[in-house]
């Protein structure tokens, strides 16, 4: 029941808002629908806590400790982003950057995007997961091009083609996986792509085929995670689309793609008994961290700056999953959570800051703190949090990852530390000049919604200080599930 609501609300919402999303009250409806989804996700969590893992819908969907917290996180950030986008899109409408028809498209696609991500997270069928991931790309392409500027069209085209080609590789990987599984599980019945069945027989899967499959799956889903050198679409898509979309792309879609990679890694590692998947994840992760840290220095656009920061953090997560083992997996899951909360909070603050300054260029945004202290402090605190300063949650997860790296992969620790330092200097310097200094900002026609920013930061702060026992248990159970190391 909760499960049907979880997927049903956003799907029906997409239909409803796709037809009526241009009306004045549509942003409120969008918030209400997202709230409904979030409540359904919470109810589902309570049920999983009481009854353990769930398998529903003829085994096509399942919930285990690994995906349940991502479902709640996705529904939560979906809700707060809807709250943020309510005044944000109204201001865009008032500034004449979009018309009612585009608002209709925006709202319909927003709900559809939420639905596809929730399907990708909860499906048990690796084929359906692919379908949902591709649908997530398709539903956001037209959102990236919402402003119809030349730059946004280019970003949308890049996003479509690069992710399309990438995800085609993942389909080939899925076919290979099916091919290997079919030899063990039999062609009759559709169980050969069901994760719960695959994981039971993972040691019997043909290693040669699976290692080939993993290369394709990692390149495919890795493109969507934004792992270097496949990251080219990410900064453009984040910078040119409307800011609520940047927030959900960075905070949610990257996580969902990472989830897909890790699911595949578990299967492949079980069959291979070698360190190939781990090494590949660590290699791609480290490369992403280093490249992103270097590119951060060249950014002049505030949204591009934080898009590169997302690449860096997904690199850290990927590196941690690559190391494997209970602690690293725990830290990676925690990092996914806090990064997603912090980064979306930053995008909320950046969105209103850019609206106030009338530009996304860093040098045009000055003195936020004098005109609107809440936006200024929100951005500053968010930046400090994402840079890994204690006592925020990002510090806790990065600390765990670095200490594990010192023990398991000592050679990588200096590289990671250096990259984190370089990124710190690049981001902090730019944000500091935006927050302090003479002001250039103007008044906005609607009161900006800053509650989500501080709600997220508060959560990240409390995760840094104290992780509730049930959450820690979850992370531990999920880390065990992922295994490795």
């Amino acid at each position, binding site marked *: 029941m909760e499960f049907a609501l979880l997927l049903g609300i956003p799907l029906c919402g997409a239909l409803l808002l796709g037809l009526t999303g241009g009306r004045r009250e549509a942003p409120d409806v969008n918030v209400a629908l997202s709230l409904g989804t979030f409540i359904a996700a919470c109810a589902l969590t309570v049920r999983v806590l009481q009854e353990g893992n769930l398998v529903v819908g003829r085994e*096509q969907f399942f919930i285990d400790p690994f995906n349940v917290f991502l479902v709640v996180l996705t529904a939560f950030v979906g809700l707060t982003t809807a709250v943020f986008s309510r005044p944000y899109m109204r201001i865009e409408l008032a500034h004449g950057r979009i018309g009612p028809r585009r608002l209709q498209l925006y709202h319909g696609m927003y709900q559809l995007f939420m639905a596809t991500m929730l399907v990708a997270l909860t499906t048990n*069928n690796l*084929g*359906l997961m*692919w*379908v949902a991931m*591709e*649908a997530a790309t*398709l539903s956001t*392409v*037209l959102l990236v*091009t919402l402003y*119809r*500027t*030349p*730059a946004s*069209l*280019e*970003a*949308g*085209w*890049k996003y*479509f*083609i690069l992710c*399309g*080609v990438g995800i*085609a590789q993942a*389909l*080939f990987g*899925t*076919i*290979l996986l*099916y*091919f290997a599984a*079919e*030899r063990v599980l039999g*062609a009759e019945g*559709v169980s*050969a*792509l069901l994760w719960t069945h695959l994981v039971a027989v993972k040691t019997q899967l*043909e290693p*040669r*085929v699976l290692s*080939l499959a993993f290369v394709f799956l990692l390149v495919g889903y890795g493109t969507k995670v934004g792992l270097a050198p496949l990251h080219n679409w990410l900064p*453009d898509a984040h910078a*040119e689309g409307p800011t609520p979309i940047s927030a959900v792309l960075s905070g949610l879609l990257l996580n969902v793609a990472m989830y897909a990679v890790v699911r595949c890694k578990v299967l492949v590692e079980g069959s291979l008994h070698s360190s190939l998947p781990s090494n590949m994840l660590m290699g791609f992760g480290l490369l992403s961290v280093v490249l992103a840290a270097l*590119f951060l220095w*060249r950014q*002049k656009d505030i949204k591009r700056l934080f898009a590169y920061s997302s690449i860096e953090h997904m690199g850290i997560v990927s590196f941690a999953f690559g190391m494997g083992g209970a602690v690293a997996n725990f830290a990676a899951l925690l990092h996914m959570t806090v990064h997603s909360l912090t980064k979306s909070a930053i995008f909320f603050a950046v969105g209103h800051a850019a609206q106030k300054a009338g530009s996304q260029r860093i040098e045009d945004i000055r003195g936020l703190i004098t005109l609107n202290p809440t936006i200024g402090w929100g951005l500053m605190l968010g930046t400090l949090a994402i840079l890994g300063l204690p006592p925020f949650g990002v510090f806790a997860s990065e600390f765990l990852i670095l200490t594990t790296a010192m023990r398991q992969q000592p050679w990588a620790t200096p590289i990671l530390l250096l990259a984190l330092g370089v990124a710190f200097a690049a981001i902090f310097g730019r944000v500091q000049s935006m927050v302090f200094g003479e002001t250039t900002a103007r008044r906005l026609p609607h009161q900006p919604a800053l509650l989500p920013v501080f709600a997220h930061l508060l959560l990240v702060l409390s995760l840094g200080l104290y992780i509730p026992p049930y959450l820690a248990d979850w992370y531990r159970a999920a880390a065990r599930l992922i295994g490795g190391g």
Partner: protein
Amino acid sequence: MAGPSLDLQLLNTCAAILLLLSFAMLSQRRIVSLVNLLALQGALLCIATLLLAWRTGQTHLYLSAALTLALKVILLPWLLHRLIRRLEVYWDSESLVNTAGTMLGGVVTVVFAFGLAQPIAALANTAMRNAIGIAVAVILLAFITMITRRKAMSQVVGFLSMENGLFFGAMSATYGMPMIVELGVALDVLVAVLVLGVFFFQIREQFDSLDLHHLETLREDQ
């Protein structure tokens, strides 16, 4: 000693023509002809699926053949032709640099594809295991087509051709994916083409052309 049966020979012929069509796409300049080649590739896929269905007696392959016929032979080419008419790019062709070099690269790619498919083909117990190499080759050739083209429309045709290769690969290695996945993939492809249709009009409205060199301004050092 008897040679392979007639239907198997026919299947292998289909696979060979499929590969030939990929090369034809690589060298075709006119956009309308590219779409026609894509439709032809779809038709061949449909025939191959039907032959395979008849040979193995698996009912879901008949369904999958029907899906291919509806989507790849009729609907997608029709949509693309309609787009070409509405966008008035009927006579568009593009100047390909160094066709001979591209073709040579294609030949090398095919050799590489067969090497890549070797371990899979060795394990497959389907009738068409030799075709797996061809499927990988079609995917890679479509990839080259996408890289060497500058027009948005030709890149999309390359993208769809890649999907054809994937479909053919799934068919020759495992007699197709489960029905629910095939339906989902087909839906995604259809939606992708519809989204692109909207997208093309946006690009044209903005730049008066579908040439992708307009879309190369977002660089790191701007």
